[in-house]
């Protein structure tokens, strides 16, 4: 089976604390140490070591995800789910390790990427689409479908700032799901919108899942939804992989954490 995502031994490091004159002193000191080392002097000043300590949000994570699989990603708050999704979608790079991807990644981390209040619905479709890497002529073909799906025919040429928050979510969801991508990341977006729309969004998700060629990464705290959508699950705990495999077993592992 072909792999859609191949994660090799990645770590992600974050700095704690704020950026201020102390962190500057530390950076400056590190820089000086580097220069001293380069010219052969061994001068190590650790006066600022305690400032901005580092934390590993992901520790030596390796994962192979096959093409077309619907994978649930579960774990408590702070287990590294979002960090992993950020790395897969290319927003931030891993500190160590590599991720191999085949195809375009689209993410529903947040709906309405790049939406600007002053632009009309239509202008936002084009802006948001091109930010997600879609070609203009491809967007042209899908505009009507997006408008239909988001149920905002009348308002499409009105600035988005006059929309209700529900309308913005609908439009955002439509824009991010209608363009096909090989890898789709879904992060609890389905919690927004009215009841009818939620059902529609859910159907859309199911349709994506049934088609079979799209790899889906689904993050949720709602275990019923995970059960419904996902064949396999990844359980994360404190940045480490605890379990990867069958959904039912994964849920047991998760509940026993």
């Amino acid at each position: 089976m072909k792999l859609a995502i191949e994660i090799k031994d990645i770590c992600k490091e974050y700095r704690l604390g704020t950026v201020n004159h102390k962190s500057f002193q530390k950076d400056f000191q590190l820089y000086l140490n580097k220069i001293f080392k380069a010219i052969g002097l061994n001068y190590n000043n650790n006066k600022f070591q305690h400032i901005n300590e580092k934390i590993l949000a992901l520790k030596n994570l390796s994962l192979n995800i096959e093409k077309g699989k619907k994978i649930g990603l579960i774990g408590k708050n702070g287990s590294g789910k979002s960090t992993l999704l950020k790395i897969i979608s290319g927003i931030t790079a891993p500190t160590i390790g590599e991720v191999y991807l085949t195809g375009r990644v689209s993410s529903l981390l947040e709906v309405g990427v790049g939406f600007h209040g002053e632009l009309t619905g239509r202008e936002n479709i084009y802006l948001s689409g091109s930010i997600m890497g879609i070609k203009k002529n491809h967007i042209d073909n899908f505009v009507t479908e997006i408008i239909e799906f988001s149920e905002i025919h009348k308002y499409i040429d009105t600035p988005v700032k006059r929309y209700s928050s529900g309308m913005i979510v609908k439009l955002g969801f439509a824009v991010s799901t209608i363009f096909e991508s090989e890898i789709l990341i879904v992060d609890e977006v389905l919690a927004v919108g009215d009841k009818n729309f939620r059902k529609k969004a859910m159907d859309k998700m199911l349709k994506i899942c049934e088609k079979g060629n799209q790899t889906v990464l689904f993050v949720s705290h709602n275990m019923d939804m995970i059960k419904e959508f996902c064949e396999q699950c990844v359980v994360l705990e404190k940045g480490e992989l605890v379990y990867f495999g069958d959904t039912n077993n994964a849920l047991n592992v998760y509940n026993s954490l």
Partner: protein
Amino acid sequence: MLSDQERILSSKNKSLKEAFREVLNSYELIFFLVKRDFVILYKQTVLGPIWYLLQPIITSFVFLIIFNKFAKLSTYEIPGILFYMIGNIAWVFFSTSFNSVSLTLINNADLYRKVYFCRLAPPIATTIVHLIKFFFQFLLFIALYLILIINGYKTKIDFSILYLPLFLIHLTILVFSIGLLVSSVTIKYRDLVFALSFGVQMLMFATPVVYSFQSIPEKFKFFAFINPLMPIFENIRNCLFGAPFIDFNYYLTSLLITLIVLVFSVKTFLNYEKSFIDTI
């Protein structure tokens, strides 16, 4: 839109070639970002871009009165109003685009945080927006030029005006490069934004905006080697009036500095772009 293109995400920097190819592939994104900035600017205004024409006219008149009439700085056979206007609109292009480019990463942080796209697209789009504003103002300058010619001004304009696009591209690349460099450096420490916005104000007096290069005392002319803006500004003005170009050595130095800064700043940016979102 389905593709089997394989990508590797790691802590390694992109090469200049890869970055260049990515920018070329993102031309549509750059177009929509430029469009966004323009639409936002003129939404709910009646006069729209005309506001951009008022400002250089007023500033040029003020410059004319202060520097030409009071301070008696010679404009060397060039009508004062045209002399100050071209200097002023080119300077405003430089200073405003420098400020905006150096803030693009901070201003677009929300966007960068949500999705991956060509990281260089917003700074490039910002530069283009300011270039377009410059062209609006340049049209005004041409209109004024023609009015003066009709009223009897005998211009010496010649074929050297064909070099104008070259000088404008040069200026654009320079402002983009230093703006990009500052934007990469200010990801973590924002102090530089304050220091430099003041520095740019001072830099105007070290650049032939309100005076001509010929007015500089001989012993200070070496400044043209240090300040790469000096030869560009002098040449932009001179090619519009058929005046002789600045000594070629000055211009060549400026060109070299520009290319070095461009490569250096793009390299720096590529080093920071992978995970600046963790710091900004």
